[in-house]
């Protein structure tokens, strides 16, 4: 799994190097990549449930909202969806990095490290689909929780949010990406 993430990262590096060139990036529309990330996020939850000691401390983490109302979601345009997904991935990246600093259990630490790499890969995928957020302003911690964020108090809840976010909003966005729709048609 780490090898797979590494390969994707290398690919993304080359994509980034050639990103300013005239030729567009080749869109990554295969959802099996995302499914792979989802399974690794679930593995972290399992490891967390079995962790006995060195499993982090109780502290609040700012995380995105994961709930999806299909009726509402369908009325949001793709770019709005992309912004929401992009912000959520950034929040998760910060929270996981903060949590890993307090984890001494090596399996759990490794799992958290994979999750962070996967989130970075997802960023690149969104870039390939031309769904990168136009604005990269993230809400800071001091501000009250916006309608797009929520606060959790444990690593377990954090991992659960990560899993739900990837399976929900991220997947819905990737499955509905216009670049992939043009490819299928």
């Amino acid at each position, binding site marked *: 799994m780490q090898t797979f993430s590494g390969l994707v990262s290398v690919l993304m590096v080359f994509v980034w190097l050639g990103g300013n060139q005239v030729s567009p990036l080749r869109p990554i529309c295969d959802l099996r990549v995302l499914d792979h990330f989802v399974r690794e996020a679930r593995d972290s939850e399992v490891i967390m449930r079995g962790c006995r000691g060195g499993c982090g401390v109780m502290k609040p983490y700012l995380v995105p909202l994961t709930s999806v109302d299909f009726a509402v979601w369908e009325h949001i345009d793709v770019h709005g969806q992309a912004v929401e997904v992009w912000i959520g991935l950034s929040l998760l990246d910060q929270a996981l990095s903060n949590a890993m600093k307090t984890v001494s259990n090596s399996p759990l630490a490794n799992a958290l490290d994979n999750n962070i790499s996967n989130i970075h890969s997802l960023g690149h995928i969104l870039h390939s689909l031309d769904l990168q957020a136009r604005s990269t302003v993230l809400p800071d911690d001091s501000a009250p929780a916006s309608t797009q964020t929520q606060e959790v108090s444990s690593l377990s809840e954090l991992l659960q949010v990560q899993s*739900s976010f990837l*399976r929900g909003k991220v997947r819905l966005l990737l499955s509905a990406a216009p670049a992939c729709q043009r490819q299928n048609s």
Partner: protein
Amino acid sequence: MTKMRSDRLKIVFMLCLAFVTTGGQHFESKVAQLLQDETEDIKCFVEGKDLTCFWEEEEEKNNLHDQYTFTYSYENKNKMPCAVSSLSLLASNKTIFFCKLSKPPFFATLNVQVLRDGRMLYSRSLNAENFLFLDPPRNLTVLSSGKEGQLNVSWLPPPLKYMDDSMIYEVRYAVEGSNMGKVEVIKVSTMLVLLGLQSDTRYKVWVRVKPDGVSYKGYWSAWTEPVFGVTPPSDMDPLIVLLVLFIGLILCLLSLTVFLSQHKFLLKKLWPDIPTPEHKFPGLFTVYKGDFKEWMSQNNGSMWGRSVHVYTEELASPLEVLSEVSLTSHGTSQREERKPPEEEEEKESERSDSGLTDRWREPPQAHWLMEQLKALQENPESRSQSSLLQSHDTYVTLNQGDNERQADDVFEETLPLQTLFTTAGTSSLSTSRSDLGSLQQSSGSGRLSSQSSFEYPNHTWPPKGPGYAYMAVADSGVSMDYSPMSSSRIAELGRHRMYTNDYKNEIFPHKWPFSGQYIKSGSESCAGPVW
């Protein structure tokens, strides 16, 4: 216009009713299944886009549904209530209370609680996307692919948005009437080719669906209604055809080889050559073109001589002559005269296989025979007797008795020999005197033939009764020596009857035993009793 609108409304109403009814059937079946499988107090499932949570009625009390309160919350939101309803299941005779959330939030943790009379009864936290309970696939079709042992199965997924690529299907198939079935699992795709099926067999096929478990999870749907398909009949395996042809070719080659190597033998068996006597008659068919007279005239001398040898050597047939006549002394009484010859004949017969020329008696015996023959010749009735005897043509007896007894003798001669010979001293005797006489007559001239006539066959002779002499005479068939014994010659011989008997060249070794059986003998005249 108004009528058309009302018709449309009716149609829509019927469709909605059908949908609800169908959904209701599905809903009850799903509830019934979860009642068995799910262990949680609050059992929840997502049907379509709606989340339904239900619980069983407590047994102690006959509760009313309005005493229950159902609330849910998610993502820091406040608790929201849900209307509770009741349902009586006819199949299991149970009552449940349920709450249906319309379009609940997915990918978020829901906290549900059931309160009864203000007190928490049940609570549960769940993500709705993990409890999908899909409807069975639609439009299941089973078709023959045309290939041996294959069936094409296809279906349509349940109508769910965003989830088409997250479903997994299970196809079950079994021979009609059999309880043993196989299961095939297939992801995403909604068609499958069943392989390795029996030819010309009717199969039942079912399909069910479930979320693949990556993004969405849930329960297996109910099986579809079975659909039947028949596999095509098996074609002849080309390998078997080739093997059969190859083996047939080998068999043909083998049979051809056998036939060619053994064709002469087979032809001989199937179409045997018709035997021809050509080799016995050299030149008859080639030189004389089948003209026997001509051939005979040309080959008369040499052929006769040769034939004598041939017949004497090859066609000898034993001839047993039974005689009571004694050949030792002719001056004694008839019986006495007969006995010695019998004894002599016995002795002669007993010392048979050695030299033939020494067997014959001295001239006194021959002289006596000559006298007998003369007597027979003088008797004109001998002819008739001989003719009578010839008419019987079964045996030859020489009667030394009186003429008076001729008629009796005739009858006696017609009796079986046993009866004839058991009367001691009777006049009816079978003698070989005539034969002896003829032989004696010819002894001078044709000794060779007489000798040959006394060739005893190689077989053993059964013992005869006392007082009866027998003599085996080899029937030479064509023998000029026997010509004197024709009926005309016999007439010249005298008073005593001479019974002649035409005998054929037949060898009856098996009839030599004294069984009283008569045999026919001789194409040539030969005087003498024969068996």
